């Protein structure tokens, strides 16, 4: 039994090592293609694969070991003959790396998984033989796509939602498959994160300060009256330290967007190659940090936006020349932090959103009515409606009409926002704005009857009071309140959380929260505003996770639990 435990521990370490190495391989291989620094890059990859091969053997992952061995041989040949390196060779290396990545993914779920590697091994052997022939002859860039070969890896995790089952193109599968995203949220697999030690040290320092303040309070308790001033001072300092601690601990979960950027690089390369478009990708702000779970969630959203950009945005070389643009299309991604938020701009200089087409499709799908007049921005925003797509040919890459809607939902779930700007002929820009932390925020405590709820301040635009004479009944029974020159839909808090109430608020002066829910303003009437507090969102059990309008729970200053409202999920 002990041996088994030991093997499991070793294997865990192996998985961590593999994740790191295979990721580094991909980055290095892509770099190799860009910079043509073949020898250096090949050396790096060779050493890594060699190390990983050895480790795989020692933890008894036979199939992995064999494929790594074959890959190692190919690289050895290439190192001896760098003139043979072509785009196809690099493609094959990337593909093999992908297969290894997918094997690790499988093995993490089932350490006894076996793999059918005959096809990929053959491909590698064939490549080696071809290289033998071309060793003495000048390098020919072989344009025929060797990448369109039948399935190599027959194991594709069933949990991958992006797999299009009717499409058997293996490159397609390998590029859409992203083992790093949360494909199976219920799996018990542990996730790991790499931390710079300085973050931990900084945290420990702050803890040290807290311990000191704590002991001051200990001494003070002997005589509370005499030490009153010192106690007050210490409490102030403690609250600052606690804030710092929260911050530092959250910072531990932050990862740089480099990981996302690497994925994007690979995506752009593969997509533009398959679609025969020349695209130059510029990435800015790779050291910007975001919460790891956010990074995972954004991955799919960004993938979709970029696919669309390359597929529908960027024109073909001829079209671009005819339009007096550079032959190579441009995609620029900017990542930066500002004011507690994370911003991501994805810009392309393609053909932009076609307003006429958008309106046409929207009319056809009943998303808008004939007589509606829309501003340019409103027209552009129609792409976020469910089921919307102007694409007539559904390609492998995009056009299924579920994308932008899903992207928007992911962003909204993360309490962020997404905006699109576009000029026909010039290009399109997407701007994503996301809060850096979803779990710690400032909230307002409201009372309705005898219960208390918390509304995140980020959702509240304003708190205002109104009189009865400002309230009107609309034709459809919807109540509205007149505030200044605006008419705002008015709801009772109880209604919003789905509770029937017969209570009538008889006071003349009432209080309401002005909430921005997606793209409209609503007013929520409450009995009383009790105050504000820094809120730490706590998980509540699976048994209550899906209650309507509830984002989670939080503990108020008096130690009691209050529910936190999820504005996007309230019933109005």
């Amino acid at each position, binding site marked *: 039994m002990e041996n088994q435990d030991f093997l499991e521990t070793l294997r865990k370490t192996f998985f961590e090592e593999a994740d790191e190495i295979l990721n580094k391989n991909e980055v290095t291989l892509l770099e190799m293609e860009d910079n043509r620094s073949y020898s250096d890059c090949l050396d790096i990859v060779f050493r890594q694969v060699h190390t990983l091969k050895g480790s795989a053997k020692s933890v008894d992952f036979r199939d992995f070991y064999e494929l790594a061995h074959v890959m190692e041989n190919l690289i050895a040949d290439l190192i001896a003959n760098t003139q043979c390196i072509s785009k196809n060779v690099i493609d094959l290396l990337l593909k093999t790396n992908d297969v290894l990545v997918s094997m690790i993914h499988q093995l993490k779920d089932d350490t006894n998984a076996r793999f059918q590697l005959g096809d990929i091994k053959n491909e590698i052997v064939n490549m080696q033989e071809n290289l033998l022939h071309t060793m003495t002859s000048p390098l020919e860039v072989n344009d025929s796509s060797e990448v369109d070969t039948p399935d190599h890896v027959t194991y594709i995790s069933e949990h991958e939602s992006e797999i299009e089952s009717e499409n058997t193109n293996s490159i397609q599968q390998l590029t859409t498959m992203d083992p790093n995203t949360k494909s199976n949220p219920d799996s018990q697999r542990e996730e790991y994160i790499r931390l710079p030690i300085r973050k931990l040290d900084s945290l420990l320092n702050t803890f040290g300060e807290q311990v000191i303040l704590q002991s001051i309070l200990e001494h003070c308790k002997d005589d509370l009256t005499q030490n009153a001033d010192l106690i007050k001072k210490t409490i102030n300092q403690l609250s600052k330290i606690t804030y710092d601690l929260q911050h530092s601990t959250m910072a531990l979960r932050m990862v740089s967007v480099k990981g996302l950027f690497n994925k994007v690089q690979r995506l752009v390369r593969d997509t533009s190659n398959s679609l025969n478009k020349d695209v130059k990708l510029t990435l800015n702000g790779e050291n910007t940090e975001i919460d790891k779970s956010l990074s995972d969630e954004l991955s799919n959203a960004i993938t979709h936006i970029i696919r669309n950009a390359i597929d529908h945005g960027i024109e073909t070389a001829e079209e671009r020349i005819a339009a007096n643009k550079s032959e190579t299309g441009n995609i620029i991604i900017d990542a930066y932090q500002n004011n507690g938020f994370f911003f991501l701009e994805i810009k392309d200089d393609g053909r932009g959103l076609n307003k006429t087409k958008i309106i046409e499709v929207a009319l056809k799908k009943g998303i808008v009515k004939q007589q509606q007049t829309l501003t340019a921005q409103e027209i552009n925003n129609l792409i976020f409606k469910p089921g919307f797509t102007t694409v007539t040919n559904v390609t492998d890459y995009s056009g299924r009409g579920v994308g932008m809607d899903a992207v928007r939902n992911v962003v909204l779930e993360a309490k962020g926002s997404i905006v699109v700007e576009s000029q026909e002929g010039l290009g399109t820009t997407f701007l994503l704005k996301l809060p850096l932390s979803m779990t710690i925020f400032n909230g307002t405590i409201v009372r309705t009857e005898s*219960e208390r709820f918390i509304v995140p301040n980020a959702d509240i635009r304003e708190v205002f009071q109104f009189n009865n004479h400002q309230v009107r009944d609309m034709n459809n029974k919807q109540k509205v309140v007149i505030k200044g020159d605006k008419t705002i839909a008015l709801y009772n808090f109880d209604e919003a959380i789905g509770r029937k109430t017969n209570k009538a608020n008889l006071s003349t002066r009432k209080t309401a929260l002005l909430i921005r829910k997606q793209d409209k303003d609503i007013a929520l009437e409450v009995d009383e505003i009790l105050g504000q507090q820094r809120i730490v969102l706590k998980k509540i059990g699976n048994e209550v996770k899906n209650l309507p309008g509830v984002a989670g729970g939080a503990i108020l200053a008096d130690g009691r639990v209050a529910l936190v409202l999820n504005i996007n999920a309230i019933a109005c």
Partner: protein
Amino acid sequence: MQETAVVEHHHLPIGERDVKSQGNKVLHAKKLHKKKKFLIFTLDEERYAIPLSVVKEIIGMTDITPLLHVPKYFRGLINLRGRIFSVIDLRLKLSLSGSVYQAKKTSIIIYEHDDFVVGMIVDDVIEVIGIENDQITQNVKPESIAHKEFVDGVARTDENTLIIMLDVSKMINQKEMESHQKLSNNNAA
């Protein structure tokens, strides 16, 4: 001679982690040969048992924040050292009459089943004892319980007291929770 484990403050074996805190009772038990350990508590003077292995902690009655759109027996949420737990009222769940909570006696047993960690309110927690399989009669459902599906059988101790074995997997019914939410979603729409 009944081999009963007395409430002692030993450390649990490594496999069972306990959470210590002041003011809360955590029951430990001596390792008993061949007998499975059970926590005994009372509802309406009747004795009930659940396996000790699922028990995480036992605390006294505390403030409960009620929830909407939940079954009647679902009392709400509590704060236990910074973590939030759901709490159900076992009397209501078993369709016994509800009663006033008595200070010092009414307790909340925090237990774990599958992915759920939940508290249940009981009248009083008595002891931990070992019960052998042959002391348990399955499929005998006592008259006092309206919902026989929550009961796993009846055990007879050496002193001839009867203990009703509760099936913890039946306490939280995900489907029931969901149907309550659907009902209220419909009302709200």
